[in-house]
């Protein structure tokens, strides 16, 4: 797994810069001035990025056996679950934010995160924090600062 990530990232970057180069070259031509003016910078940039990604790949190949403690942590214990849940609930939050309004969605989002990260045993403090913090931010932004929240 660790090896996969260590080499996967530079390979991903190579693919990304390649795609970036291709889409740079396919940019629409400008109708005023030099028709290619919009693409020089991104195209040059993507070539530079491509070269750097290859250098990075070779560097990583040399060090691929080295231990990276944090990378190991990424896949051990409940970390993957924590990350996926946090990101997943972020996505759900984004999807329902406009529908059910700021206050309700934030209480649920914050409460969900707290229960998951802080654990069910501390349910009381989780509930208090979720409700009071959501309400406080809602009050501060919507009422004091006049930000239009859904």
């Amino acid at each position, binding site marked *: 797994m660790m090896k996969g990530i260590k080499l996967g990232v530079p390979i991903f970057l190579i693919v990304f810069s390649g795609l970036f180069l291709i889409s740079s070259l396919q940019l629409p031509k400008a*109708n*005023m001035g030099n028709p290619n003016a919009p693409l020089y910078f991104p195209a040059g940039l993507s070539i530079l990025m491509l070269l750097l990604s290859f250098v990075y790949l070779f560097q990583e190949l040399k060090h691929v056996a080295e231990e990276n403690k944090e990378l190991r942590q990424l896949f051990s214990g409940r970390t993957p679950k924590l990350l996926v849940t946090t990101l997943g609930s972020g996505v759900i939050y984004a999807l*329902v934010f406009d*529908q059910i309004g700021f206050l309700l969605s934030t209480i*649920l989002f914050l409460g969900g995160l707290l229960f998951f990260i802080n654990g069910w045993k501390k349910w009381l403090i989780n509930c208090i924090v979720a409700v009071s913090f959501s309400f406080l931010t809602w009050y501060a932004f919507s009422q004091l600062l006049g930000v*239009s929240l859904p």
Partner: protein
Amino acid sequence: MKKFIKVLLTMSVIFITAACSGNASGNDGYPNKNIEMVAPASPGGGWDLTARSLEKVLTEQELVDENINVVNKPGGGGEVGWKYLKSKDSHSLAVNSSLVLTNNLLEQSELSYEEFTPIATLATEWQALAVPADSPYKTASEFLEATKEDPNSVKIGVGPGLGNDDHLSLVQAASEFGINPADLNFLVYEGGGDVVTALLGGHVDAVTTSLSEVKDQHIAGKLKILAVSSDEPVEDIEDVPTWQDEGVDMVFPHWRGVMGPPDMTEDEIAYWDSKLEEMIQTDQWQQVLENNDWEDFYKNSKETKAFLQEQHDLYQRLVNDSGLLDN
């Protein structure tokens, strides 16, 4: 993990119930709930300030009893906000300007002005062509002559993007003068302020921008306005000729207005006609106009509809002339 599923289940149940119990229905009178004024820009921008001025005057003069809330929906040169408006009912209005026409003409947006209900045109600014105080060009005609001679040698500053009124007003002037506007040498700056800095620093030969950006500088003698796009000389700078005085047949307003979502009823439109007509006569609105250097440009819904049609045809021609699109 089980516990997590439990949370998810509870959460989704709450979401669904909440989503279903949405829209409360009201009685028949219009308006019967809070009014939303959509500013298709971030707080602090021109559209936002227009929306907030409207909210302020309509509320403080007690013209509209319902609460008016300004809602910011920035992005895509107004498109995000107007798309949002399209999805709302008649209790939402949005601020607009010529971008509602040009976004579509420049093929940047599928939204057409015809999809919305015109409510009113409120105010306008004028466009100005300015040069450094020590410029060799003394008049707008001299400037255009020199540009005609060698378009590439005259650098013109504009901002924040091509296809806006600043740009298109000069496109119109140039094409009236017999210059192919696509040949003009524009340097595009990030904003109106940057354009003026560039002119003061002598990095461009001329700028086309809103009059308010350069009016004080002209009075202070830091630069020289060659022409304004109004039909009559403008207060405080009566010495500056209009384009018509310079022999270029053009009046170019940079207007702002209000529109509503598609399919508003006659009664709803009539409501706003009467309210806004009242509003523009208040001292408070006059003060707003004065502070912003805007000029009264009120047109009611019917006039606005005709005006938009007419502007649309004009902009279509200008966009084609400008060389921004390939054809």
